[in-house]
């Protein structure tokens, strides 16, 4: 079933702003309210909105489910790899080996920004992978 032209146009115009808001939440997680989980869910809802309005076939051309599944595993492996890198540089597991920087800047907080990015990508891919599975194997839009 295709949605009406109004809904499709509005979702098309709104989609980049939702993605931008999600990336803002992820990248400013250590400076302002937000973080990896919340930003990842916002990114996931952008993909879900696109799938609800344009149909699953149109969306799968841009966001392939194979890539989403791969990104999810990649995010979690990145987290564990960064944790072991802490041991390698002389701290504990998940230790903060990067310089802390000046408080209030984007580059402050050491490992927090890579952690947030990895968690955000992983959560976005996971939420949309659940949605894809629900649509593809049980019912259709």
């Amino acid at each position: 079933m295709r949605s009406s032209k109004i809904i499709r146009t509005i979702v098309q115009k709104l989609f980049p702003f939702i993605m931008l808001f999600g990336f803002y939440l992820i990248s400013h997680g250590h400076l302002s309210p937000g973080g990896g989980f919340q930003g990842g869910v916002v990114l996931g809802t952008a993909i879900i909105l696109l799938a609800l309005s344009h149909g699953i076939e149109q969306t799968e051309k841009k966001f392939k489910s194979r890539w989403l599944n791969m990104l999810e595993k990649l995010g979690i492996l990145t987290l564990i790899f960064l944790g072991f890198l802490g041991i390698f540089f002389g701290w504990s597991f998940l230790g903060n080996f990067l310089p802390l920087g000046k408080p209030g800047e984007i580059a402050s907080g050491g490992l927090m920004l890579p952690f947030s990015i990895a968690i955000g990508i992983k959560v976005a891919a996971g939420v949309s992978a659940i949605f894809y599975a629900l649509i593809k194997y049980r019912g259709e839009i």
Partner: protein
Amino acid sequence: MKKTFFIIIMLAMAILFILSVDIEYGNPKNLDVANYYIEQGLYDTGAINLVASIYLGYRAYDTLIETIVLFVSVVGVVFCLRGKK
């Protein structure tokens, strides 16, 4: 053997529970950990958002295992919905 082990563990838990009854958790005297986070969180982790400094700095294990929980749930949903192929 199993029963005595179970009873010993239950007794230990009961003793710990009885000992912890008279601790006042809202009392400002017992807020050492919270006060430490508020005072030293910025210097330890370098993040001005205290929530992030706790869940990505002090409690990073919790965040890691939480993401693994989400991963396992996604795997379970996809596995159960796909059925036999």
